[in-house]
């Protein structure tokens, strides 16, 4: 590969990182996209379509097309399983060091036969990761942190079995030195940990799951929620504001009302006989006509303004929820087959490290602090930009719009500091549409 001229380093391969990357390459810039995990698409890639009779405008379906475009984009270098470990400023540029694990499964050789995943003795620990995102190839990745070969050197099952010899376990972590003109932080968010609120029973009461888990489950088909032969699911409850709007997280996560109400409507739409209840503090606006949306919701599902005090399992395998009825002040019990905790959006785990490495300020909630309230893409450090939920809770469409604005800011910055790469070949954009 030719040395990249004035490249931009985008950290994070979620929807914001992908959008920023795509827009920058379309404007003629060279981009290095680094992602911590083995696959791109981020958290939004695991969300389900929530359409009932009509589209519910969650934006989850946009990820697939973005990935297709991304893999066809010119002037782009993708570094998966890579993390930024050092960064310093030098002559107006950044000298960055990425620590990365080269792909153990060779994309040129892999035929996605799934033998490595099915025969791996450490499969339960997650040594072989699969993505359902089809634009990816290979769709299998071996994670050294769980692989027995890397942990104790004992196992070479996958490498021996692979029919095309695509697996090379001898590749070791390496460091990559880069000089880049700008850095875009699109490191996203971390779903709140529901174990903080132990009275909701997450982790020990069977039948209590998080909204993220429900999304993942439904992403693989609606039937996943109703496993054959199992107990019929007839009563589902959602509990809002888990890990947001409390003393440890004094902010509203903004997206949870939207996603739970949409999920609730989806369940009700597919299974009209299923009773769906939502426990909430305040229902935040959803969509352009929030009143109409809420009225439609309240016709289909029961909304109760109360946050439950106790969530406990019963002998019958159901989940019992205790709450105070608002108008009478009475404590009531209600039983459900499934309780879904609407977990909020928390700051990314690496924000502190990245913040100190790039000398960025963090908000009290540990999100990245933008330069000022109106200029949400720039930071206190010239040349370092913010995109997506690294800033704070954002929905998928908002992340896309914000990342586009961030790409524009980067473009303006680079125009001020460096010469531009030659015009983009527009024909290249057509390739993704090939049959």
């Amino acid at each position, binding site marked *: 590969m030719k040395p990249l001229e004035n490249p931009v380093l985008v950290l994070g391969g979620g929807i914001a990182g992908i959008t920023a990357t795509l827009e920058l390459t*379309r*404007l003629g810039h060279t981009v290095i996209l680094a992602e911590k995990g083995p696959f791109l698409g981020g958290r939004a*890639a695991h969300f*389900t*379509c929530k*359409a009932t009779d009509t*589209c519910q*405008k969650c*934006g989850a*379906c*946009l990820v*697939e097309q973005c990935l297709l475009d991304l*893999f*066809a984009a010119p002037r782009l270098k993708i570094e998966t399983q890579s993390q930024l470990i050092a960064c310093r400023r030098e002559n107006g540029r950044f000298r960055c060091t990425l620590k990365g694990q080269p792909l153990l499964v060779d*994309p*040129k050789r892999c*035929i996605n*036969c*799934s033998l490595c995943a099915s025969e791996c003795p450490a499969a339960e620990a997650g040594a072989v990761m699969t993505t*359902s995102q*089809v634009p990816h190839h290979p769709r299998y990745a071996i994670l050294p942190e769980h692989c027995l070969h890397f942990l104790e050197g004992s196992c070479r099952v996958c490498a021996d079995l692979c*029919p*095309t010899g695509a697996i090379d376990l001898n590749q070791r972590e390496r460091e990559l030195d880069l000089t880049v003109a700008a850095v875009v932080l699109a490191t996203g968010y971390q779903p709140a940990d529901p174990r903080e609120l132990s009275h909701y029973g997450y982790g020990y009461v069977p039948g209590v799951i998080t909204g993220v888990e429900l999304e993942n489950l439904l*992403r693989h*088909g609606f*039937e996943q929620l109703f496993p054959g032969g199992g107990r019929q699911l007839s009563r589902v409850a959602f509990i809002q504001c888990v890990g947001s*709007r409390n003393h440890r997280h004094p*902010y*509203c996560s903004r997206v949870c009302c939207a996603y739970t109400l949409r999920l609730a409507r989806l369940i009700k739409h597919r299974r009209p006989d299923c009773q769906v209840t939502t426990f909430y*503090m*305040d*229902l*935040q*606006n959803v*969509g*352009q006509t*929030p*009143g109409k949306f809420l009225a439609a919701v309240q016709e289909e599902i029961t909304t109760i303004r109360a946050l439950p005090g106790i969530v406990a399992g019963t002998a019958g395998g159901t989940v019992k929820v205790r709450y105070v009825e*608002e108008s*009478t002040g009475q404590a009531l019990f209600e039983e459900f087959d499934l309780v879904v905790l609407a977990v909020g959006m928390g700051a990314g785990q690496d924000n502190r490290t990245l913040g100190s490495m790039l000398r960025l300020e963090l908000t009290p909630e540990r999100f990245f602090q933008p330069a000022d*309230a*109106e200029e*949400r893409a720039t930071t206190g450090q010239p040349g370092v930009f913010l995109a997506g939920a690294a800033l*704070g809770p954002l929905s*998928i469409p908002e992340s*896309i*719009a914000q990342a*586009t*604005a961030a790409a*524009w*800011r980067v473009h*303006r910055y680079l125009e001020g500091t460096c010469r531009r790469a030659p015009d983009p070949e*527009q*024909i*290249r954009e057509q*390739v*993704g*549409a*090939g*049959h």
Partner: protein
Amino acid sequence: MKFAQLVEIIFLYSFETDVGWFDFPELALWTAGLSQTRVLALDPALPELEQEERLRAFLLKGKRHPVVLVGLDPLWRGRATINLLLEKFRLNPGLLALVDLYEALQYPHAKYVLIKAQELIYLAATRVAQAHPTEFQDFPMNSRVLVWGDSWAACQAALELAQQDHEVILAAPGSALPETPPPDLMPLLNQVQAQALIQPLWEASIMDLAGGAGNFTVQIKTGAGLREERVGAVILAPEFRLTANFAGYGLSPQPRLLSQTQLESLLLSEPETDHPPLGVAAFLLGLAGDTCPQSLRRALGAASRLLSRNRQVHLFLGQAQVAAPGLEEALENALAAGLFLYKLQETPEIVPEKDGIKLGFRDPILLRPLEIRADVVVVEENYYGAPENQFLSLLTQIGPAPSRFLQGENVHHLAGVTNRRGIFVVGPGHGVLELPESLTEAKATALEVSKLLDRGHRRGPKAEATVDRGRCVLCLTCYRLCPHGAITWDNRALIRDLDCQGCGLCASECPNNAIHFSSYSDEQMFAELENLDPRLHPRIIAFMCRNSAWIAYQAALKLEQGVLPLGFTAFKLPCAGKIDLDFILKAFTMGAAGVLVLACHPENCRSHRGNLHAHWRTEQAQALLVEAGLHPGRVLFQTLAANSPSDLLKEIDQWCTQLREIEEAVTKKVPA
């Protein structure tokens, strides 16, 4: 069987392709045996230079022939080859077809895999052999931009573009930009006023807008008369209007009732005019109609000013709209400063009295009735789009949306992009956005405009959809139908190349078949349907929208759940609305047991209502089937998202069961 012209078939062949039950050489031999083909086996893992040499030696010089690229996951494995073909060998993308052998590999027997692969190659070759690809052309683009509106988002967009050397006309009905903006917007205002490339036009109204992306003609009326401006792009960001929601709360205006704006101006005036006295203030919020985080932010702002002056403030709140940065904190701070907050389900009873207003309600914590006497009651305001939006919507064919906004919600129209190329709707033009969000959108739109107009020219497909001027009778069906406003007319319909987004709605709806759509032509579709392999059974034809179902289908092929019927063949459409009644009927003539039409979910269509047209046309087809004595269940219309491959497989599976039942019922009726 013969292709319309010579087809060059390239097999991406390396030893991976031999794994399993797939006999690659046999397939290649079969292909070589077809007339009008040339075959090359190429290892996609070879270095690019080596591949280039081999391609150069293989591809015929002179006229470019269509190419079919066959391989396992060719989009990935053959990426380098594709790039070489398109860039080094200047192959028109319309002359390149990809065959993904995964589509064949899902079948458990070598025999079926081979037959299926043969069919896929045959159909792909048929399609490209019939292709009349669109050429690309550089279109001149006017680099001037009209920004409409006096919102801060409009100012931001104008400034961003002017700084990129675009000449900008900033026009609005108002008489000037506000002289005293909030302090953090002062730099923006100063920069806009100092920017020489921004030409402000005040007290203006848009009278007409014609033309398309890169070349709009706008008639603007100002005090000085009517002027005609030529611009390459239009950004619509008219500021929203506020109206106090007295009616929603069942109140009639009186001196002690203030709207939020009235209170704000009262608080700004120094020295503070205490008329009526602001001793005890009560705010009503979120109890009647829509409310939004801005309303809460403004109410809390005013409340904390009152609290800092030691006034008593009561806030009657329905749903607390705290879904915006810092609002939860602001609410907590106000409570700490002494705000009385009542979260109610119903509006309090409001009784005007001689020296105040009495508010009666049931306290949600004490669970008993309470009464509060306030000096003033402050009512929240509703947000509406600007009054000119209705006319702008007619003019631009964008929207209208509820509350007089311009653009509805469609997840494909983000960052200011609309159904019209070259017209953007930003910030308060399409909804109640907070200022930072609006400004963010303005910047994202600046990027979109820059991509569209940059360098004064744009490369795009030339004559993708063309009107046969001999057939057009100027019925204007296409004009009314086009979701992208790309059609105009002289004495026949005309399609503007740059505005056309290639959905093909016009071509399939034209009553006189006068519109030819080159990248998905009827001839291609018919040729493919005629060349279906009769050995594959049961024959099921699926027409899929490329924006949703096609993506899901590609994903479904690689899931390890279920196998599609052997005779299942999918056709990609640019939009489900491209489905033609003739396609469905032709499929049945060619022996299809069923036809499936898959579209995007309602309100998710990139082409606005393409999915709806597809639905109507399948209903028409069903009616025709009934007339012909066939079961209408043989045609199915379904909507699907791009990220639901499992749902796709399940739908197909269920429907196939139904089809089998239909077939069985038929065979029972007709004794052998």
